[in-house]
């Protein structure tokens, strides 16, 4: 049996987020620390985290809920193999495996219920076989064979889905083959005249950036999951990157797509920057969530690496002022590469994640800052909130831009709060998923979900959804007040993207995951009732498909269905997402 790309599976957790060597834990002294060497926070003590966890969730270090340490292969159903398919697959020489570990690893994304089940050693329906095509032509062969032998294909990229998109439909009776694109990870060419790069779709975000950087370029596409998520996955879910204000979202970055479908290969005949050739077929592909085919190669825009980067942060007296400032920044179309606004709870959370300071001077300075903001400026520590900023470009322009943004912020009562706070804010993005694993060790479960809405509804949705979460938790018997917090993560001309974080201590509940799901369901209902969208960039998957019809109308559903019916009449790409 072929061993999958060792760089990936063997260095990553099978039942949690990210790298095996990186995790939060409480050391012998009861202090929180983050292990490993990969992140800025790695190897550091985080003195405030324990108290924050204890006070926010009423969590207790005595009450542990450890995960099952290793995968029990006997809990995995033996594979249902389609022998005829297998026989022909062998003759192509494309690597495959039906090893239990390989199959389980590709049977899930990172929804709470998926990870929770793995930690408890519960394994549901998993793919029967994993194949590792090495190039576009391999994919063509696999899809042909799948059609011929009526096998269900589920494309697998980075496995970071949070929409139940990778879950195998339990009702599927055919053999399910997970098509892992991870071996298709090369940059095929770079075109410096047109500033484009042609890339295989299995490449993960950090590798793409690293390789392009070697030639002095970048795509600038940095979704929070970029360490692990793949280019094909971005296209299939309509991904959005942190720095979209400069580089655009995936739909703005893509110039050309090649996708293999049961009907054959779809691609455009040229690389013109914009076309008027009927509805853009790329838009059938982007967001198709693996229901139509496998994206194999993508031509993307690239940019010269920025000369200069600068983080920043602004403290506002309250969330309302912060939102008003972001709105004004968007109105003047002067948003930095990234601008995000955390609410008060999240500000406190960020504060709790401050690593131990090395010098007395820094801690003295921190104290002084705090004094200035709360006592001298009269900010209420229980109301203030903070915006984090990232500027990029040539040095002079960045400084000019920075001044412009801080001037606007000042009109809304904002005080510049330093580069350090800003940088820590962005670091948080990468470690927050690790924190969920720590919580799950101590009876705390949680997740984030996102939406987008017009500007005038931002405050209303934030308030109502947070309140709805609290109320639903109470109604569903959660014994401790939940953490219910949000942040505005993207600004647009006509609206914004908001992330909600929600977690609670589940001691005393018999079915915590079910409670969690009911609350998230209610929160989504609240979002939709208040004029928010079903998803800004996570996608629909199976988790949110019950709301698709009301989101895009029956006619819209019919349009998508008829495309599916034409492209894949036998439902070979049978992950049952979206529709």
């Amino acid at each position, binding site marked *: 049996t072929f061993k999958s790309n060792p760089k990936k599976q063997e260095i990553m957790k099978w039942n949690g987020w990210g790298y095996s060597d990186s995790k939060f834990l409480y050391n012998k002294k009861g202090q929180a620390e983050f292990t490993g060497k990969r992140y800025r926070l790695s190897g550091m003590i985080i003195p405030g985290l324990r108290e924050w966890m204890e006070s926010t969730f009423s969590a207790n270090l005595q009450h542990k809920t450890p995960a099952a340490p290793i995968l029990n292969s006997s809990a995995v159903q033996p594979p249902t193999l389609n022998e005829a398919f297998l026989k022909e697959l062998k003759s192509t020489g494309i690597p495959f495996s039906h090893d239990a570990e390989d199959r389980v690893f590709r049977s899930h994304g990172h929804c709470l219920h998926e990870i929770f089940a793995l930690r408890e050693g519960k394994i549901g329906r998993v793919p029967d076989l994993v194949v590792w095509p090495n190039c576009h032509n391999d994919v063509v062969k696999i899809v042909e064979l799948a059609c011929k032998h009526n096998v269900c294909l589920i494309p697998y990229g980075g496995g970071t889905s949070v929409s139940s998109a990778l879950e195998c439909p339990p009702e599927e009776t055919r053999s399910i083959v997970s098509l892992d694109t991870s071996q298709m990870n090369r940059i095929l060419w770079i075109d410096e005249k047109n500033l484009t790069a042609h890339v295989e779709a299995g490449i993960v975000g950090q590798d793409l950036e690293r390789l392009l950087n070697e030639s002095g370029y970048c795509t600038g596409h940095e979704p929070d999951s970029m360490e692990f998520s793949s280019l094909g996955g971005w296209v299939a879910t309509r991904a959005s990157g942190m720095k979209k204000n400069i580089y655009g979202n995936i739909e703005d970055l893509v110039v050309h797509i090649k996708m293999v479908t049961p009907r054959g290969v779809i691609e455009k005949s040229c690389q013109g920057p914009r076309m008027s050739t009927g509805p853009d077929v790329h838009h059938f592909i982007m967001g198709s969530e693996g229901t139509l085919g496998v994206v194999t190669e993508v031509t993307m825009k690239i940019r010269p690496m920025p000369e200069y980067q600068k983080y920043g942060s602004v403290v506002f007296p309250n969330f309302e002022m912060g939102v008003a400032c972001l709105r004004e920044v968007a109105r003047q179309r002067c948003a930095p590469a990234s601008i995000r606004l955390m609410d008060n709870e999240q500000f406190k959370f960020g504060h709790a994640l401050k690593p131990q300071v090395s010098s007395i001077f820094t801690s003295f300075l921190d104290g002084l800052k705090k004094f200035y903001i709360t006592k001298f400026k009269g900010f209420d520590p229980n109301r203030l909130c903070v915006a984090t900023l990232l500027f990029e470009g040539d040095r002079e322009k960045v400084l000019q831009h920075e001044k412009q943004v801080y001037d606007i912020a000042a009109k809304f009562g904002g005080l510049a709060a330093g580069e350090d706070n800003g940088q820590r804010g962005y670091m948080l993005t990468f470690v927050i998923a690790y924190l969920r694993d720590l919580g799950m060790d101590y009876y705390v479960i949680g997740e984030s979900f996102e939406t987008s809405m017009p500007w*005038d*509804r931002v405050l*209303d*949705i934030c*308030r*109502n959804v947070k*309140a*709805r979460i609290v109320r639903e938790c109470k109604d569903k018997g959660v014994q401790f007040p939940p953490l219910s917090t949000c942040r505005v993560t993207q600004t647009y001309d006509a609206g914004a993207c908001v992330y909600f974080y929600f977690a609670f201590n589940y001691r005393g509940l018999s079915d915590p995951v079910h409670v969690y799901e009911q609350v998230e369901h209610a929160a989504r209902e609240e979002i*939709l*009732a*208040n*004029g928010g969208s079903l998803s800004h960039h996570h996608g629909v998957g199976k988790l949110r498909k019950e709301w698709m019809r*009301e989101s895009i109308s029956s006619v819209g559903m019919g349009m998508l269905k008829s495309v599916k019916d034409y492209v894949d009449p036998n439902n070979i790409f049978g992950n049952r997402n979206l529709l």
Partner: protein
Amino acid sequence: MHIKVKLAYFENENDNSSFFPHSWLNYKKKRDDFEDMLEERRNSSDLRYALKCYTPVLYKGLTPCKVSELKQMVLQSDQLGYVITQVSKEKGVTSDEVTGEAAAILEEMAQRLQLSTVRFFAFTLSKVFKTLFRSICINEEGLQRLQQAIHNHPVVLLPSHRSYMDFLLMSYILYTYDLALPVIAAGMDFMGMKVVGEMLRMSGAFFIRRSFGGDKLYWAVFSEYVKIMLKNGYAPVEFFLEGTRSRTAKSLTPKLGLLNIVMDPFLKGEVFDISLVPVSISYERTLEEALYARELLGVPKPKESTSGLFKARKILSEDYGSIHVYFGQPVSVRSLAESRVNRSQFNLIPRHIPTRPSEEILSFVNDSAYRLVRAQEENMVLKPWVLLAFVLLQKQAAEEKQGTALDELTEQAVWLRDLSRQYGAFLHWPDHIPPSEVVSSSLSLHRGLVRISEGRAVVILSCASYRNQALNVFIRPALLASAIHTAASNRKQEIYNSFSFLRNMFSNEFILCPGATVQDFEEACYLLVKTGTLQINQQEVLITERGHRTLAFLTSVLDPFLQGYQVVCRFLCEQDGLTEKQFIPAVRKFIIKHLLTGSLLKCRLRYTEVLSSDLQKNALAALIRLGAVQKIKGYVGFTHLHVHNKVETTKLLFIYF
């Protein structure tokens, strides 16, 4: 637990298919105890009380703001801005002029709540209340719930409206118990009273014109003003669902305008929830008792004036018994709207653009309004006198001129007491005192009305207004009893049809939730079966041996109204072309004539109370609604009434004789 019962009730009301709705859970519900708030006033200094430290619990999301800032917020709101631009385009005037107009409207409307004025009222009202009333009883648990509600969400107070006293009393209570003082929607008529109008303004009243039909600007200023006060948690907003004082003590069918406005911020997602708190104010004797009766007989309502108020001083020498104020369970608009309203309907139009509420919203608001009025009714305290009024009026109609022996009266009152308790009435009958004493002391408080055998109309109508207080307890069983009485057979379906017809006919007269015919029928059946009056099997409805007395009583509950409607029908059939304005005087003349000759359709016109203009108006409205009478706009601009569908009308006329 309590809240859950209430909510389950609301949800079940929607479900027409349920055979036995759970609404009678309410009949078993435990009501809070009362405390007399005047007791402390009688034992300690009113001045110290008026100057006490007042620190109410406020809304948790409150951004404190001054009265003047409030006005600025209204004038600068997107909502008003939009309408101002619209109006200025339509009328061809500058938007500055329109803004000026809006500012003037706001000036005329706005309250200027001032603690010092409230303290002044607290002092004087203490003196007045102690003279007029024996006690003012409050359910303190209700106030605790209210305090919690004020802290959590914007609150709307919805008191019943039987007297001018109501809103002063409300503010007085809230001040006494250290609760946030409300702003109160009041009719413009008070503004006529110069000094008093301004004083009321300074105690939180804001004034709205009685009619402003097509005036977009007025509507925009008004609705925005109310919404801003509510959304920001500035103060609880208080208004009367019934729109005006009920002259008959029956609850009036609710007006929807203000309820629509206060629900809007929730429906559009501007607040997480809003609490609606029904408040039931029951007077043992209303100050306006005789005034109302005269008004119903066509003696015009005196214009509100300060000097009139002083003339009313003589009432200070009378005994008006006690007042009971019951603060009901706060009702969450969110729970009312759950699985009922699709809030995403507001997603596609900017929220500051005024839009007509959809059918869905209108019917939601309407149903909610009826439920709230019923919630008020359910917690109205009934005094023994109310039951005596029933007995006395029925006797009077039966022409027992000799008056009634006290023993007999007591026996009947006790019988009625037990019946009304079984039906869930909130009866305040002192069980530790012998019934005969209860009866005689009630009679002495209302001695002005007791010698009703004379049949003077004013007295009869005053008396009827006491009886009316308990009508909501009996209305559903009474409709069923009358339906049984008139149905051609005892087949259940037939009786239901008859019930449905009567219920529909009387839906302007009584609080009968629209679309709830099946529930009401089931509820009535349940009560009459439970109390051993009826036996109901699959097909038939049978009257038990001991059920006849109850049934006779219940039929006679509805009789005066039936006869009243018949008289109006009869009158209309004899008319040809009548303007709406002429209707009341003409029908009154017609009735008086027949009362004097003593006959109508070979039947005796027994009920003097058919003279009530309230009943006559309701009858006309019902006939128009049912299509029996049509309004036709004549060329001179008068609305003519035209008997359109003689069939419906005749059905009513004859079927019940």
